[in-house]
Each structure stands twice: as C-alpha cells, then as structure tokens.
C-alpha cells in the first residue's frame, strides 16, 4: 500500500538515503532497524514527505505523493499518523486539546469531536488525564497522548520514529502493547523505526535492515511477543548480579 521507488535524500554533502525501494504491505507491522546515521529515520520521514526526496517517488494506495500539490498532500497526510521519539506535543495545550487538533484540521463535525477524542484517549488508557498539561505527565503517558493524537483521524498508516527510545524498558513494553493493539484491533498498518533489536523483534512481521543509506536486507519474521519488563529495584539488582560472583558493594 505504501511504496518507495528509488528514493534518494541528501543533506548538503551527506547522502542519507541512496536510491531505496521498499513496499510496506497493508496490515503489517514493518520494522526498520540500523545503526545511528544509517538513514532509517530519514527513510520514514520520506514516507509522508516530511523530507522531500531529491529523486524517486513515494506512492500511497496508488496515489503519487511526490507529484501532488500541497493541498492534496496535506489531505493525504491526514490519513497518515506519526509519532516521534520526543513526543512533540503542544506543551501549552491540555491532553484533550492536543488530541482534538487533528480533528480541527480535518474539519471533523464539531458535535462529534468530543466523543472521538474520548474514544482515542480511552484506547490508550488516558481518559482520566484529559485536563492535564504534558508537563504534568510521565514520558510513557506523553507518548500515549501522541498516539491518541495520531489515531484521531483514523489513519491507515502509523509512522513511528523511535517511539520508545526515550522510555524505560517497562514503559517501552506498555507502548509496544498499545501499538500492537492498534494494529490488531484497528487494522492500522504500522511502520516502526528503532535501533533497539528487542523492540523490533517483539512486534514486527517484516523488518528492513539499513546500513549507510541503503537497504541491507528485508526479512520476514515472527514477532517474539512483548516481554513484560519489570521495573522494580529488586529486578535491577538481580540482573546486575546474576552469573557474576560478586557481593553487594
């Protein structure tokens, strides 16, 4: 459904993505993994034209994004949700007001906005925090708000740029569970960029490995499932001392 055809992108002299072709299939959770600077984030940002490719074409459901005028492109972007490593919420708006923005942008019927926002917040389990400001939330809660915001317009695809890289292991597991849920129960196609192998392995059906701006390989895999990580100090101590014969300092 989402197709990149020989796309390239350079930043001044650095070529971040070199003539990459990739197809994302409807309904899959597609991972993109690679070292820092491998071009995986740039590749993701090319998918909604947040970065405009120097060469090549981007296609969604047969519509060519690269040849669209800006009005049409904005229309298509409304059907593509995106979440970020640093959440990028509007700090001066409440949780509710953040989630309602995409509905305002899409001219969603005014009378139905409230129930749609509440529906999205319930989905991520944050309906009780609707009047809080982002500064009053934890990292995991902020990412849930960002997910609710991305879901508001019922997107076909959710693009995730390092969604768990700023979170601790247990919160990471929570967020991955939410993402998996979105895929399973809402049928949203998910593309997830991460440098953490465990994150990619736990939920992805197909994974693209990138190196030096090129695709090294794309492999099919069976998701290992999300391990519920403990966050207790006891667990940390166990992990630190297992297999090692040292005493408590």
């Amino acid at each position: 459904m989402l197709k990149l055809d020989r796309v390239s992108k350079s930043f001044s002299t650095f070529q971040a993505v070199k003539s990459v072709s990739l197809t994302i299939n409807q309904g899959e959770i597609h991972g993109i993994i690679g070292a820092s600077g491998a071009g995986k984030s740039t590749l993701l940002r090319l998918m909604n034209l947040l970065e405009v490719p120097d060469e090549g074409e981007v296609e969604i459901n047969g519509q060519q994004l690269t040849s669209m005028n800006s009005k049409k492109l904005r229309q298509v972007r409304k059907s593509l949700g995106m979440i970020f490593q640093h959440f990028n919420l509007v700090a001066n708006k409440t949780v509710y007001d953040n989630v309602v923005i995409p509905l305002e942008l899409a001219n969603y019927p005014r009378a139905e906005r409230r129930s749609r926002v509440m529906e999205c917040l319930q989905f991520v389990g944050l309906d009780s925090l609707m009047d809080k400001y982002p500064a009053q939330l934890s990292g995991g809660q902020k990412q849930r708000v960002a997910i609710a915001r991305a879901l508001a317009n019922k997107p076909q695809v959710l693009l995730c740029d390092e969604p768990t890289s700023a979170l601790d292991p247990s919160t990471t597991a929570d967020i991955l569970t939410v993402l998996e849920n979105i895929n399973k129960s809402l049928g949203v196609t998910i593309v997830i960029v991460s440098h953490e192998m465990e994150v990619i392995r736990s939920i992805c059906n197909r994974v693209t490995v990138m190196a030096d701006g090129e695709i090294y390989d794309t492999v099919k895999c069976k998701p290992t499932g999300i391990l519920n990580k403990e966050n207790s100090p006891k667990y940390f101590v166990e992990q630190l001392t297992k297999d090692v014969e040292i005493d408590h300092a």
Partner: protein
Amino acid sequence: MLDTLGQYETEIWQAIGETFVMVGVSILAAVLIGLPVGTLLFLCRKGNMLENRFLFSTFNLLVNTIRSFPFLLLVVFLIPFTRFIIGTAIGTIAATVPLSIIAIAHYARLVEQSLLDVPKGVIEAAISMGASVKEVIFKFVYVEARSGLVLGLTTSIISFISYSTIMGVVGGGGIGDFAIRYGYQQFKTELMIYVIIIMVILVQIIQFIGTNLSRIIDKR
C-alpha cells in the same frame, strides 16, 4: 509640593492623555503589523516553512535599519513621510507615525526571537498532521510561543513609553515633554520629580502585569 501639582493639574492630565494616545497607537501598530512582520521573518528564514532568501533579507535589513537610527533622528527624518500620511508633521497624532514605525520594527524582532524558540519537533508534528502554514502558525507556533510574545510586548511597551517622551520635538506633547518644559526649562524641579515618579509607577505596573500574565499562560 502638592500646591504646584494642583496648579498644573489640567496640564498634567492632558500630558498623560497624550502619552496614552501615543503609546496606545504604538501598541496597536506593534500587534497588528509588528506581529505579522516578525512571523514573516520567522517563516522566511533558512530552513523554515516559507524559506525565501529575498523576502527575509529585505525585511531583515528594513528592521535593522529602522532600529539602528537614533530615535530622535528617525523622527526628524520621517517628517516628510508623516506630513504625507497625516497632512501635518506637528502634534500628538503626527507623533504616532514615527512611534508606530519604531514599534513595528522593535516588536517584529522580539516576535521572531520568540517564535524561533518553539521546538522544531512541534512544527514537524503539525506538518505531519497535514496542517497548512496558517494552521501551523495559529494552532501550534503562537500557542507554544505565547508567553514569550507577551513578555516581548511588555518590554516593547516600556520602550514605547520611553520613546514617547521625546516627541515634544514635533509638538507631540506627553508627560516627558511636560517634564522638560515645566520641570527643566522653568526650573520647577519638583514637577520633574513628580513626573518621574508617575513614570516609574507606570512601568512597574506594566512589568508586573506582563510578567504575571506570561507566567499564568505558560504551561510548559
């Protein structure tokens, strides 16, 4: 002291009125024109949504030039322009022309700086949601920058009061002019001190309101 004050009460009130007119028009000009100009500077800057080297350099140069004039010289320099707009270069209304021009340039620069402080990620999120440039500015950038915009306007208003005090040179009046004419030129030092006290109180009140308002609306 109160005797002399009573003697000049009408003049003082009139001078205060003139100052309010001059500063009021400056504030209007700053918000109605300075805010859009500052936003344009922000948008046209390299790497931003409407990157445009020509527009950016033009407005940048204009703002810098206006701000580099010693204000007294700007007032004199603009006399023909003022006469063209208002019909006369003398009086309180005429004085609002040079004041408005410096107000626009002054606030435009502060607006640009506040907007540049908005995290790039928030703007990216907006674009990824399909927001137009106008929507990015009104629904995201202004919302995130609002406390900086209020603080900038507070600083600007205090500068406008200071600028307005020299408008006596073109018959603009105002409390600054009153202090010079009566307090200094007629050796009524206590009158001058009284005017200074009024201005100190005025500036304190404005700064107090500005600081608190910007704190209340800042949820970051």
